Each structure stands twice: as structure tokens, then as C-alpha cells.
């Protein structure tokens, strides 16, 4: 009995050890600009698309890119401001043009792109994208931003619905009186087609 419990403890420890292997969030070169009344950021993240997703850009259906930015004071783990930007792109088969809509703190804008490469650049480029009001950034203090990019994120409601279909209670053996099945066919619907996270290098606002 004790040996069995020891084996269980070792398995749990192995799981905990696996968690320590998560790669660190990479740092990316970004350019910050003070454009009253906002701090803005510029940079690109084309690596959010792999070749397969790039192919999907021409599928005729919408690809959505959601970018969320979180402003931190260096050394703190509490975000002091957050902002978001969304890009949607769709290929018009008959006009042979990519239609793009961008939304962020500054409002909504529409673009067109003639090539897939141009469309990719448009939806993976932060071009003076608002980060936070300058008023919340104290001069002389170090800050950094964390960026979370999702391509085609799925809403929690849709995830819940699809996962419920997949658990197939009638066949899996569970019922209204039953418990959860232990093993079953378990395809996963990801929360997004792709997720990319990176952070900026520390920056500060010069004292006036």
C-alpha cells in the first residue's frame, strides 16, 4: 500500500515538474511614441500566422486577430492599464481583394489589400496603436507591456456548447444519475487557432 502511494506521489511530482518546463515569454522590439493624449506602440507580429493559417486568409471566410496589451510597472505583477485592438480580414473572391476592418481605442477603420502578403502585414502590424493614456505613466519610472495575440478566438459560450456535444453522455456511460466518463474520444477545440504572447523591453517616459 505504501509503495503504491509512493508511486502516486512520484507521478504527481512528475506532473509538477512538467509545469516548470514552460518556455518563458519572449521579448520583442517595439517602438513607443507619446502622441498626446496616448502612449502608442508600433511593431509587427507576423509570426502569429503559420503557413496553414496564411492559406486560410484566402478561404473567403473571416479571419479575426485580437490583440490585448497590458501595461505593467516594472517589478509589479499587477497590470495598471489594458487595451485591445481587433482586425478582421476576408477575401472577396469575385473582386479579388482583401477587405480589412481594424478596431482599437482610437476607433474603427477599413482598408483593402490586393495581395495576401499585404493583408497579412496589415493585420499583424501595430502602427501607433494606443496603449494607455499618458496621464497614467509617471515620468522616470520603468514600465513594460505584455501582449497577448489570438487568431480566431472562440467565445466561451461556443466552447461550452461544443465541448458538451463532444462528451456524448449517452454513449460515454454517464447519465443524469451517472458520473463523468474516465476515457473517451476527446478531440479538443482550442480557445483560438493560434495564440502568441510576447513582452516589450522596459521603457520609461522622460521627465519633462
Amino acid at each position: 500500500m505504501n509503495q503504491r502511494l509512493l508511486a502516486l506521489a512520484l507521478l504527481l511530482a512528475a506532473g509538477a515538474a512538467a509545469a516548470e518546463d514552460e518556455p518563458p515569454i519572449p521579448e520583442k522590439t517595439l517602438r513607443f511614441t507619446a502622441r498626446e493624449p496616448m502612449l502608442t506602440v508600433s511593431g509587427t507580429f507576423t509570426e502569429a500566422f503559420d503557413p496553414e493559417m496564411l492559406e486560410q486568409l484566402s478561404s473567403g471566410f473571416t479571419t479575426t486577430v485580437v490583440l490585448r496589451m497590458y501595461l505593467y510597472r516594472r517589478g509589479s505583477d499587477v497590470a495598471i492599464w489594458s487595451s485591445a485592438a481587433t482586425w478582421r480580414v476576408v477575401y472577396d473572391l469575385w473582386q479579388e481583394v482583401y477587405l480589412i476592418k481594424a478596431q482599437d481605442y482610437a476607433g474603427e477603420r477599413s482598408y483593402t489589400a490586393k495581395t495576401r502578403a499585404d493583408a497579412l502585414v496589415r493585420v499583424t502590424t501595430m502602427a501607433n496603436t494606443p496603449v494607455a493614456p499618458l496621464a497614467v505613466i509617471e515620468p522616470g519610472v520603468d514600465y513594460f507591456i505584455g501582449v497577448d495575440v489570438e487568431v480566431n478566438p472562440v467565445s466561451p459560450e461556443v466552447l461550452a456548447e461544443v465541448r458538451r456535444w463532444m462528451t456524448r453522455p449517452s454513449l460515454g456511460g454517464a447519465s443524469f444519475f451517472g458520473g463523468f466518463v474516465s476515457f473517451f474520444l476527446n478531440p479538443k477545440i482550442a480557445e483560438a487557432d493560434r495564440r502568441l504572447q510576447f513582452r516589450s523591453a522596459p521603457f520609461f517616459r522622460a521627465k519633462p
Partner: protein
Amino acid sequence: MRALAALLVVTTVPVSLAAQPVEPVQPVQDDPTFGPLIEIERIDVVGASTNVEIIRREILVKPGDRLRSGDPRFNRSRFRVLALGYFTDVKLRQDKGSQPGAVVLVVEVVERGTFTLNRIFLGTSDDTPIWAGLDVGDTNVFGSGLGVAVGGVWAQKSSDVPGSRTQGALRLRVADERVLGSDFGVHATALYTVASEPLVAAGGARSVLNYKRAGGTFGTTWDFAPLMRVGADVRLESATAPDDAATADLRLRPGQSLVSTVTVGFERDTRPDPILPYRGSRFAFALESGFGDYEFAKAVLSFGAWRLLTERHVLGFRLGAGIILGRSPRFDQFYVGDVNPLQPPRPLDLAVSTRGSFDVFSTGADKVVTGDVYGGVSIEYAFQLFRNPRTIYGGDLFVSVGTYGLGSRVPFSAPVDLTFNVGLRLDTFIGVFELSLGNALGRLPL
């Protein structure tokens, strides 16, 4: 790095300078006004050897429809096809149709194996030297969309108890969760059980109750709202017990008797991830009424809610209660292994142990194995170890503690006991694995 650990759980809306955790990230909705106006000329399915009608009926648009290419129905159609569980990937694309504005909707699927290992039964107890079994199935038999599963358990007889015999249980299940692509499902189960249930008398004397069960259930479900379902089941089975008046006290009629019941149920489940839940709730209620030889009513209610406290830290709360009015057959009673994760389970309804609870509060809970009433509450803390898009999707370390009461309704007596569990829960592409203290203790003699 520690600072970035809080990245994913702050609000997307600008917040105050004293921004504190943690509001859920707001979901991004599809935009039905975005994209060119198109007309669906036809729908082609590529890559499927399964019946393509099963795929077509999950598509929420049809030839002749005029809509924007950003319409949410396209995305939902893709998920509906994926949710069939027959494909590893589903992609939608448009090809030009025969005239400007017309498109051919191409549904491209990549098939997967649909054989499933539903459960493995294995354990040993003081009353049963070993029990073992499997539950296997196919969720898409011959590409028909019909699911079939077979389960069997064998339990070795106890050599210490006179009259004990080998136990066995078989189950055959057939289900069509979406009849002709509708929100209605049907399912049926056939069962055959040879039981030799271990018993312990008040003085500690051990004996067995031998009986057989044969019959089945037939039921239907209706997903009447995206996250809600109702269902109804009819059960008919024959129970054969010894021609001994004493069995009446054991909740089985002597000789042959008929168990006939009707069950109705309701379930609402808003958890985005029911395997490793981190938000949402689940509420389920079921009422079963027995007629004829066993007149009884059984009601079961369960509720659970989960919340992400901060990045990776999840708190869960569970509540459960049940009551049986009248005299149900003994195998329908609540069992300690059903409500206490530290006790042996009932593999395919076979009782393989007479072990009671640990009786932490010295209330006499160790003497109670079955009952007509129970109630329990527990809280669980989980730490999200990792999340992964492929193979091993995620793992949570969890620890739970709770209390429950199980016992008789008349006279009312439900000794309360403490229960707890700790372990690792893994969500993988072949299913869910739980390596826990409860799993270990429930499958080993103590």
C-alpha cells in the same frame, strides 16, 4: 516572468489606476455585417468516407442563401461538424460559383478513428479479490453517425464467504445524439448482471446476496437551448432473487420481480471546459419514478460552480443531494462510493466492497454503505499546471475537501463524514486521467 503571469486575466476595458484582478477577457463576436455579400450555389464535402449527409445536416446555411461571408453561421457550422467527433480537422472555404457573387461552400474534413476506450475497471477490496473490465465503443459505426459501446466487468468471488459466486455485468449501449441532425437524441441500453453482493450484518457476520438483473432503458434527449438539455428515459428490467422472504428486507422481492421506471432530467452546463473547469457552472436535476413491483420516487440534484481567482488558480464549489421515497430496489439506492471519492466505486453497478467511510467525526458513518437520502458539499482548489494545444491538452493539480451525510429517511439518520481528495487531473486526446488519492484508496483494500 512572474509579472507576466498575470497577463491573461485582466480586463480588456481600460480600468482605473488601481486596477485589481481580475475580470474575464471579453469574447470577440463574429460580425454578420462584415465581408462581401455572397450566394451559396451548392455545398461540397471533401475528404469524407463517412456518410456526407451527416456532415451536410450540420451546416447551417443551404444553397440559395444570400448572406455576408462574416455571418456567424459559417463558423458555427464548422464547430458543429467538428463536434461530431469524427474529424481531426474541419475547414471551410469558398470557390467561385457559376456567376458573380455565387460561391461553392467547400467543407474539407480530415477523418479520425472513432474507436473509443470509455473506461477501464480494475481494483481489489477486502470483499472482492479482484475486479476487472473494459468499456469500449465506436462513435460512428460504419460511418452511420450511430454510436455503439459495450462494457463488461468480472469480479472474482470471495473464498471466505459461503455462497459467494463470481460477479459479472454487461452493458450494450447504442446512441444517436443528433437524430437526422436535429436537436433530439435517442439512446438505449441493455444490461445483464449476475450479482453476488457482499453483506455485513450488525454483528460483523459476512454473507452474500445473489441475484440477477436483465433488461434495459430507452430514452431521448432534447437540446432545447445551446447550453441546456432535457431528457426522458424508460427502464424495464427483471430482477431475480432467491425465493427467500428475507430478501424483502434487503430491498429485493423474492423470486422474479419487475423494475419499471420513468426518468425525466434537466441539465444546464455553461463550463467552457468540463474536464478541467475554470469557469461556468453545471446544474442537473433528475427525477425517477418506479411503478409495479417497486413503487418509489428518486430525486437527485447536483450543482457546481467554478471561478478563476487569478491566473492559474481556480476555486470550485459542488453541492449534491438526493432522496428516495418508497422502496426502490437495492441497486438503485445511494451508495457510499457514489458520494465519497475515497471509497470503492460500483463498476457497472456491481457492489464489490462493504467498506464504510472513515468516520472522521465519529458519527457512525463507517456503518453506512447504502442509503435513501444523502447530501454533500465540497470545495476544490485547482492549480492549472499547463495548457497545450496537442496530445496532452492540460493538467491541473487539485485538492478538495467536503462533508456529506448518507443514511436512512425513516427514521431519519444520515451520519455526517468528512471527505477529501488530492491529485492530478490530465486532459488528453484519448481521454481524461485522474491520478488521485481517492482513485488509489477506492481500488485497494485498507
